[in-house]
């Protein structure tokens, strides 16, 4: 990596275009820039910085863009015209050519104001420009801004040396800058990034582990819920069986209860018929007793029927006799009438004159007399005989008559009794079809069965609700379980990989930091030993903070005691850094010999020629004595530039042949 050229146009004191060629042979790596103070030596470094980073500082202060513009060019430009300020830096890195151009086209309006902004352009190997956004990346690769001050070293500023070698508070700054040069922050960032990835994976794994614990709990809860659900289901089954049993019993009982109503009706009917029977039987018994009362005690009661029959016959005969008697009387009266008629010319009944022949009346009278005789005899004999018979049988007519009425009533009751008995028999027969039904017990059982059925239904509803809840719980648990949480092997492997790489780079960084510090110390000590004239020192000792001490022959450490020692130490340290961290190095050192005695000037010159770096030294003209210094540099000087001041606003630079 080396600078090939720098071309300045209207930059600070350089009006117009000036080109500086940094390309010198390796054998003659030193370029000298010689000029008086304020003639434009430092401007070369400003131009390179501005081209690379778009800004440059004097000490801690950023130089305003307009102050970088060559005043003379600006003032000379006519109003409403444009003035270009431009710096072109060309370098080589990894055998590629880079040409970075930064241009500020200043438009000068009538009021003298300028407008516009500087724009960079980068071409690689003379090809088309790369995208503007990619330029900073290429610039950083060439020379990171953070460490650029080591390469554009300004020896005019004593603070720089002090910072470089300080063991006090400034050391933290230089340590930081040196570590940047050695890329330690990059490793730190990588470690932090790996740690972040590891933490991220770790967090994910921890979360997964927590989820696993939760899921394990969910699984346990699910098992419990399943068991409880099974218990509930069994209970439900029992209750359903119980209810079914109760319902079956109720159905059977309902069927029975239908019969019971019929039985109840039949039983009531039976009771009625039985009551009737009892009542009739009682009545009959009473009537029978009355019949006995009305009949003679001599008469055997069972024969009364027959006696009554006889009596009836007798009665009929009596009636017949009485009828005969009546007929006889009628015959007799008719005879008397006929006799009267026979003796009278008019009818005794209607006083009319009948033309009946007496003969026919007579004959009629004779017939009647015959009939009268016949009937009259019967009457007389039959009636008397019947009455006598009845009297002989001991009957009293009235009593018998009453007994006969009672008997008739008794018989009627007998018929009713038989009817009631028949009805009762029929009811009993029908009842016998229903078997033995205990109505009371059935009703008690019905209540018990109904109660069982209701209780079972309530339990079933409750169990079903509980089962539903359990099923819902199980479903939600299964859902939670299915979402996983298991630490995947991939995640664990990723975590292990990040963890290992972090471990590797953390350990590596520590070892690397020690190694490169020792390496810097070695290279710096070589430079230091080649420059320092006092041979009691054998090198530099760089501590962990990159503070620099002097290493004595006897191994003792001594602090820097002079500005010259500090300057040589700083140059040595930079050399050590560049040799350690850069494949090819260059350094632009402004005022390198300040505070150095002649002996050390000589050694710095020798070092510059032999350091292996492309060294540009910006020196006061008075610091360089061609006769003396040429000897110090030997053949190390590749080119000498002379910088002249034309006036306060213009410098010129030329190669000294």
């Amino acid at each position, binding site marked *: 990596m080396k600078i090939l050229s720098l071309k300045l146009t209207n930059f600070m004191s350089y009006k117009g275009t000036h080109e500086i060629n940094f390309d010198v042979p390796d054998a003659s790596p030193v370029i000298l820039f010689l000029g008086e103070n304020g003639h434009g030596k430092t401007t070369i470094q400003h131009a390179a910085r501005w081209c690379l980073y778009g800004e440059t500082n004097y000490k801690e202060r950023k130089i305003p863009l307009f102050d970088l513009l060559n005043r003379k060019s600006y003032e000379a430009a006519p109003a409403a015209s444009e003035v270009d300020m431009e710096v072109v830096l060309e370098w080589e*890195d*990894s055998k590629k050519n880079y040409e970075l151009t930064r241009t500020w086209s200043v438009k000068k309006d009538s009021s003298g104001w300028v407008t516009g902004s500087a724009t960079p352009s980068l071409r690689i190997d003379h090809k088309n420009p790369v995208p503007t956004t990619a330029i*900073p*990346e290429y610039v*950083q*690769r060439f020379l*990171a801004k953070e460490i650029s001050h080591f390469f554009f070293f300004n020896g005019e500023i004593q603070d720089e040396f002090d910072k470089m070698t300080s063991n006090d508070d400034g050391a933290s700054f230089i340590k930081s800058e040196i570590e940047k040069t*050695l*890329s330690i922050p*990059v*490793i730190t*960032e*990588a470690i932090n*990034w*790996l740690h972040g*990835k590891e933490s991220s994976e770790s967090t994910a794994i921890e979360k997964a582990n927590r989820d696993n614990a939760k899921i394990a709990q969910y699984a346990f809860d699910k098992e419990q819920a399943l068991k409880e659900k099974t218990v509930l289901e069994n209970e439900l089954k029992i209750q359903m069986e119980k209810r079914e049993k109760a319902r079956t019993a109720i159905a059977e009982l309902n069927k029975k209860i239908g019969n019971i109503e019929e039985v109840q009706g039949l039983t009531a009917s039976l009771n009625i018929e039985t009551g009737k029977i009892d009542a009739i039987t009682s009545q009959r018994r009473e009537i029978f007793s009355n019949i006995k009362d009305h009949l003679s005690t001599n008469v055997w009661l069972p024969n009364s029927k027959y006696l009554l029959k006889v009596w009836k016959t007798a009665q009929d005969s009596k009636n017949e006799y009485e009828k005969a008697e009546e007929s006889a009387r009628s015959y007799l009266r008719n005879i008397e009438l006929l006799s009267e008629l026979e003796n009278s010319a008019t009818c005794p009944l209607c006083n009319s004159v009948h033309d009946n022949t007496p003969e026919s009346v007579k004959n009629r009278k004779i017939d009647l007399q015959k009939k009268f005789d016949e009937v009259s005899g019967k009457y007389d004999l039959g009636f008397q005989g019947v009455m006598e018979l009845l009297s002989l049988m001991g009957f009293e007519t009235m009593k018998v008559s009453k007994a006969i009425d009672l008997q008739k009533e008794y018989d009627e009751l007998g018929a009713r009794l038989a009817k009631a008995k028949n009805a009762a028999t029929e009811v009993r027969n029908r009842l016998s079809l229903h078997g033995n039904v205990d109505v009371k017990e059935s009703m008690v059982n019905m209540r018990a069965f109904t109660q069982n059925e209701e209780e079972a239904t309530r339990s079933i509803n409750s169990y079903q609700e509980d089962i539903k809840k359990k099923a819902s719980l199980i479903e939600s648990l299964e859902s939670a379980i299915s979402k996983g949480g298991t630490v995947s*092997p*991939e*995640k*664990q*492997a*990723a975590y*292990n*990989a*990040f963890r*290992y*790489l972090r*471990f*590797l*780079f953390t*350990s*590596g960084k520590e*070892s*690397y930091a020690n*190694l*490169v510090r020792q*390496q810097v110390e070695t290279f710096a000590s070589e430079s230091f030993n080649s420059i320092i004239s006092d041979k009691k020192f054998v090198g530099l000792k760089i501590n962990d903070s990159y503070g620099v001490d002097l290493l004595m022959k006897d191994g003792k450490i001594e602090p820097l005691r002079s500005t010259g020692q500090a300057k040589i130490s700083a140059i040595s340290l930079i050399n050590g850094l560049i*040799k*350690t*961290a*850069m*494949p090819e190095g260059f350094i632009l050192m402004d005022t390198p010999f300040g505070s150095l005695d002649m002996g050390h000037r000589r050694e710095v010159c020798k070092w510059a020629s032999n350091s292996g770096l492309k060294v540009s030294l910006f020196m006061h003209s008075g610091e360089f004595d061609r006769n003396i210094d040429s000897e110090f540099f030997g053949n190390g000087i590749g080119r000498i530039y002379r910088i002249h001041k034309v006036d306060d606003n213009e410098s010129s630079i030329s190669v000294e042949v």
Partner: protein
Amino acid sequence: MSDDTVAYQHLLSTLLEIHAKNRSSNDFEDVDFVDFSETEIQQLAESLWANRFSESRTDFQDLVGKLVAEKTVQK
């Protein structure tokens, strides 16, 4: 390797040396150690070095991501 500097060589040798010790030790066997080859470690060092002056570390991060992805798939 364009940046074949002394510092880079130190970094690479350091990483490889530590890695070699780790691979030969049993320290990582218990925790499902994910092995990286020497070539992979060198690639990681190169990518890290390539990004050393960049604002982003994408080369290194992308390579780590790629390698870890490969390792996890292999697992």
